[in-house]
């Protein structure tokens, strides 16, 4: 399995190119989904409130569901937004079952600390992430989904709209509103420093 996943990681670009060239939808393949979307799933889990000490279990849960349900993926929504729906449910379960305490104020966990970065860089990234997470915590569920997908993960609005069941215009409107809110939040923070 590890070899297959590694091979997929190396060949991901080639696979994507071939898929674009063929212009035919490729059948979902777990290894490819894992390689291409693991980081996305973990970032989303964190932003949806899974504490660092629960991230490994939550990631396992997400890909456990993915492995069982991937055959049911019908392509009506994008793979990322389909995966995000699973991430949302797993995150909700973990939020209910884990006591968060003050995890947000901790430095980066070993799971996400960039190995090549300096301690100062890691600290700066952790501080920024903590602030963005705090902003994210203040959003309701649907706006939080738009925030994570559109602003953090840069998923196009046309992919987000069908997955959330809202009109495209509404998604654009929410993105603009969220960006303005985030800016105000960050400006306020910068002013207080």
């Amino acid at each position, binding site marked *: *399995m*590890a*070899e*297959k*996943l590694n091979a997929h990681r190396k060949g991901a670009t080639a696979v994507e190119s071939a898929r674009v060239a063929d212009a035919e939808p490729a059948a979902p393949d*777990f*290894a490819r989904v*894992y390689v291409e979307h*693991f*980081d996305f799933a*973990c970032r989303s889990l*964190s*932003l949806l409130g899974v504490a*660092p000490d629960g*991230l*490994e*279990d939550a*990631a*396992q*849960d*997400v*890909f*456990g*569901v993915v*492995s*069982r*349900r*991937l*055959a*049911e993926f019908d392509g009506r929504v994008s793979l990322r937004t389909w995966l995000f*729906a699973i991430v949302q*449910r797993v995150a909700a*379960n973990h939020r209910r*079952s*884990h006591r968060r*305490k003050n995890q947000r104020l901790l430095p*980066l*966990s*070993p*799971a*996400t*600390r*960039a190995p090549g*970065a300096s301690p100062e860089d*890691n600290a*700066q*990234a*952790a501080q*920024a*992430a903590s602030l*963005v*997470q705090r902003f994210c915590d203040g959003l309701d569920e649907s706006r939080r989904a738009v925030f994570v997908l559109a*602003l*953090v993960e840069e998923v196009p609005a046309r992919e987000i709209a069908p997955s959330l069941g809202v009109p495209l215009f509404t998604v654009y409107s929410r993105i603009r509103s969220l*960006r303005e809110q*985030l*800016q105000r939040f*960050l*400006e306020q923070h*910068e002013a207080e420093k």
Partner: protein
Amino acid sequence: MSDAKLAERYLALTRQALTPTPAFRERVQANLQPSPALLGALAPLPSRVDRGFFRLSKRASVAAGGALLALGFLAGYGVRPPAREVPPPPPRLLDTPAELPALLEPDPIEPTLPVEAKPSIAARHGRSRARLGEAAAPVPARGPSDELALLQRAERAVRAENSALALMLAGELDARYPSSELLEERAAIELMAHCVAHATDARSRAERFLRAHPRSVYAERIAQLCLAEAATPASTRD
């Protein structure tokens, strides 16, 4: 710096900070195990050799696993002060699969097909299934090390006083392994989860357990946790 750039800089740093390391990715990958259901659905079944994940017989594996679980449990609880005074356990990320001895490691034969996470907690939530339009497919039971991993996870949840997670995992074990040689351990962990949650029937359940398993390695801890806790009025606890 313009406002837009401020937000973009924070978002970029957030992406950087929350992106998992390759080591983390590999650790999660290592904890994923083959799903027979998916093997059947997406590709030809593996050979008999591929399906034999364990070198040891099931009975030997279960016995060794049970002993290790009990030893680990006692190590965790034997010297432990009352539950309320215990600091939270170390972060889960520091627990590695290396806790299991080599004899319980899966056979090195590499599965070539999709995989499934060991505990499928999310799949146990009917609401999640309904909202995802998922069918409630039965989860196939796998090898004893999978059961042991779930038990260890449940035990860690009890130790962290996370009774909800422990009970969910116990339910997962019941669904996957209705008959097992680790039922006593499972019952003990489930009971302690009830005690941690201050269930009203925790005391009576503990007494029944102790009558049924007077020589259980968990007896002393259950007596401490359940009988003492149940005797304490809820209003006096913090």
